[in-house]
């Protein structure tokens, strides 16, 4: 086997060792992540929490501020996404109703408060 072939085999072995170290032996630990990286079901549950508060407070501004926690998607998209997820995963009807009320509230609120949407 020529010297060059053995050299490249050594490189491949080294790459393998590097990847093994970076992905298996010392993998990245998820710490200090941001809310927009939360998995979809957790985001949906957070939206549900906001909707539960909205049901009592009836304050769309507060709801929008709370939804900003999840990132820079529009509140309407977040709530619609949570409803879609809830339908898909079989959320109780009561929860879906709460989410829909929030959606309706935001739909009627958004046109007059466009500037403050995160």
């Amino acid at each position, binding site marked *: 086997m020529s*010297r060059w072939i*053995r*050299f*490249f*085999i*050594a*490189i*491949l*072995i*080294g*790459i*393998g*060792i*590097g*990847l093994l*170290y*970076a992905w298996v032996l010392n993998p*990245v630990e*998820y*710490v*200090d*992540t*941001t*809310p*927009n*990286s*939360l*998995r*979809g*079901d*957790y*985001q*949906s*549950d*957070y939206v549900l*929490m*906001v909707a*539960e*508060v909205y*049901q*009592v*407070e009836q304050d769309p501004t*507060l709801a929008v*501020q*709370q939804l*900003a*926690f999840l*990132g*820079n*998607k529009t509140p309407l998209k*977040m709530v*619609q*996404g949570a409803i*879609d*997820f809830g339908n*898909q*995963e*079989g*959320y*109780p009807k009561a929860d879906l109703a709460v989410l829909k009320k929030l959606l309706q509230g935001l739909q009627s609120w958004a046109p007059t408060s466009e500037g403050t949407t995160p």
Partner: protein
Amino acid sequence: MRNKRGSWYLLTGVLLGITLGLLYAWVISPTQYRDTTPVSLHPEYKDIYRAAIASSFSATGDLKRATARLALLHDDDPVGVLAAQSQRYLAEGYSYTEAQALANLSAALEQSPESESTQQIPEPEDDPGATSSLSPTRPRDETLAPSETVSTARRTNTPQTSGTPAITSTPSTSPSPTLSRTPLPTFTPLPTRTLTPTLSPPFVFANQALFCDPDVGESQLRILVTNSAGEGVPGVEIIIQWDGGEDRFFTGLKPEMGWGYADYVMAPQVDYSLHIANGGESVDISSPECSDDEGERYWGSWQLTFTHP
């Protein structure tokens, strides 16, 4: 000549390969944060998440659901963490309503028979048998999805599929500007918020004890709030009023003194009226006078105990 070179070139190749491997894994194709769980959130975001849980609990009174949601954060001592966050929010000028919600949830958990008095909320159980059928994007050390743990029986236990397109998270390694902790107006006072129906009956005034210790150097009002089993209850709001002023504080700020402990420094020769926020009788009090062995007078302290009947 060739023999003198030996096999160093192989080591060179391996080192070069390792470098390339790490370069690929850490720079060219670095890990992207997505599909994470609440436990991995930055502490500040955890605070917001926790506050949302508390606000939701205040709105619904659903302690079971709040407990399940809190378990996602893997706090060692959820009752204490909630009480401490409540105190911190008050100290840092956050919404009083939000601090109240946190304190209420802390107290409700403390008093809940399901919470085993001190504090350990069982974490959602992983289902080892289900791991093979989980979504490939699901992190290995993950808790179950809210739809599996938080929900009522009508939700399914099937592993989640990937999020809906409308809500799919965008990988990002830097916090969004809208997530900053500084914009306090995010948490505006909500005067219409109602108290949770799960609160326990009002605490009653049990006893009052005088403490004379010249080394204390100030006149303290020490409050102990316990449940019917005699265990300290954190997060209980106490309102103290005097002529022309009012202040509020919570139990649990000094866990080393017990979860039901709170104290307040009284000004001498001022008459105070004190009561637990969620009802209960009012107690009138003022700084007591003590004297040492030589007859020298100094201001003493009171300890008041409130408990559930």
